[in-house]
Structures are given as structure tokens and as C-alpha cells.
């Protein structure tokens, strides 16, 4: 899982994350999207990787190797309520490292945004 962080090519073979988000929204669900926007050190997923989260905490895709998805999902449920976007940072330097840190020693910045009607 040791990737070369910033130099990693972002691919969108997980395109179905966005398709799933759209399908959920069309079915009347509330949805948030989390996207990896920057990585340092050995981050498990490249910039551009996405997670789609539904209001009942169902999710598809990934923004790490499973290290921080749990926390991102919880924050996404808040974002769905507040309809506010925010940037999240995770890493060994994070105060919450014991709970949601990255075992690999990398750092990840995530852009979390609710899917809105207008």
C-alpha cells in the first residue's frame, strides 16, 4: 500500500461512485461526497479518490485503505444535515491520531461536500 503520494496518478476507475451518488439522489436520498484532494507520505489512495455517503450511513468507494472511512462517514452525516462543505485533514500529526490516524504514517486532506439540489 506504500504509494508515492503526490505523484500517484489519479484514475477514476471508481467512476461508479459518482453514478451511485446520482442514483441515490434520484431515489430521494440525501448524499454527501468525500474526495481526496491532497496526500503526503504513504497515503493509501491517490488524489481524486472518492467516497459517496448516504444519510443512512451506507457508503461506496474509498478515500483510504479503510483507516479513516468510519470517521469520514460520521462527518458526512453532519454535512448532509448542515448542507455545509469542509476540508478534513487526517494523519499521524492529527490530534485524533489514536482514533482515526493512518497506520501507514501518511497524511490525507479530504474535501467533504453535500450533494445539493441548487
Amino acid at each position, binding site marked *: 500500500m506504500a504509494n508515492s503520494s503526490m505523484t500517484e496518478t489519479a484514475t477514476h476507475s471508481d467512476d461508479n461512485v459518482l453514478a451511485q451518488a*446520482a442514483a441515490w*439522489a434520484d431515489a430521494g436520498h440525501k448524499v454527501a461526497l468525500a474526495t481526496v*484532494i491532497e496526500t503526503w507520505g504513504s497515503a493509501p489512495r491517490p488524489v481524486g479518490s472518492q467516497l459517496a455517503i448516504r444519510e443512512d450511513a451506507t457508503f461506496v468507494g474509498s478515500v483510504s485503505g479503510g483507516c479513516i472511512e468510519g470517521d469520514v462517514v460520521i462527518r458526512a452525516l453532519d454535512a448532509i444535515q448542515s448542507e455545509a462543505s469542509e476540508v478534513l485533514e487526517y494523519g499521524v500529526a492529527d490530534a485524533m491520531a489514536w482514533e482515526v490516524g493512518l497506520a501507514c504514517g501518511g497524511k490525507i486532506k479530504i474535501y467533504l461536500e453535500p*450533494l445539493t439540489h441548487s
Partner: protein
Amino acid sequence: MKQETLKQILSAQAAKQPIVLASNLNTNEQLTLTPDQIGHPDWMVAALDAAIRSDKSRVTDAPDGTPWFFNVFNPPLRLIIVGAVHIAQPLARMGLEAGYDVSVVDPREAFASAERFPNITLIREWPDEALQNLALDARTAVVTLTHDPKLDDPALHVALKSAAFYIGALGSKKTQATRQQRLTDAGFASAEIARICGPIGLDIAAKSPAEIAIAILAEITQTLRQERS
């Protein structure tokens, strides 16, 4: 993200057109950008071009210091398999799973049948015609599997004249040597011929068609990732 913005990205993907979502990380303003648009500031056009060309999403600061995230959605990488043979069946399936837009080229209809290749684009034409029409580019991998010079060689001729990031040809060392001789006779320089990976695939002592497909896809992945990163 507005639902309308999401729909724009999905339609661009369906049309296999590149699109970039630019997000202002301070104000959360979002724009969908495509290469043909006009009227955007120069720095934004430069960031858009760089993201599409390098296939890399990134944060770029505007001249006023505002951070913007450019998320590039390029069309999928393409895998063109010449020869609808047994190995092509698992390779086509695995290529789809790895995110490639897979096409199988074989003029022999008994080989290139929908029964053998469900959900795969089949092109029942001669490989040189087919590959010319496919406009091979730097985001395309070409694999020849027929063993038959009448089918493999014309495909290799087109592939060698293209920017394809990977070219692989099935065949033993002996087959490789005779192929190299034919390509030399056809006027290709040894540096050009050296672009062909053969014997194809990473050496993992693969035996079954599925194992050989794994070796081929592993080599394509290695070429893509090691050379680009």
C-alpha cells in the same frame, strides 16, 4: 456539489469526454470545465490543461492565493486486444475490472462472438483497419494474441506508429525473433521494435489462460504506473 454538476460529469463520462471539476476550497464555488470552453482566466485554463494532460487531480492556488481543487475525470484508459482467442476472454474481463475500456478486434466471427465475450466491444474487422479507426493514443494499451502474423503484424504496424503506452505481443522467444525480423524487413528501427513487450506479460510462470491474462495485465499496470509516476 449541485446535482446538476454531478449530472454534467456523468454525461461527459458517458460521452467519453474529459471534464474537470474545479472547487474553490474557501468559498465552495464549483465549475465544470472542458477543454473547448472559453472565457475562463488564464491560470484556470492552464490548470485545466495540466490536469487533463497529466491525468492528475491536484490543488492549485489562484493568483490571489485562493486554493482550488481540480478534479480531472478523463475517459477510461483503453485496452485493445487483437485476437478473440481463449486468453482474450479472461483478459477482457480483468481489463474491465481494472477500469479499462476494452475492445476485442478479430475479423473471424466464430472467435469474436458475443457468447464468448459478453459485454465487451467486439470489432470484426482486419486489425490494421480497426486500429487506425480507433486512433490509438498515449492512454491506450495494445495486446496482440493471435499468433498469426497475418493478423498480429498489421496491428503491430499501426501500434508502433502510435503513442500507445503499452504494446505487447504473445509468442515465445523464437516467435519474437522471427517477428522482429519481419518488422525490421518492413522498415521499423530496432528502437521502435523494442517498444513491443514480448514474450508478453510479467514472468510469473503463468500457465492457464487466466494466469497469462494476470501476467499481461500486471505488465500493463507496471508500464502505466512506473513510467507515469
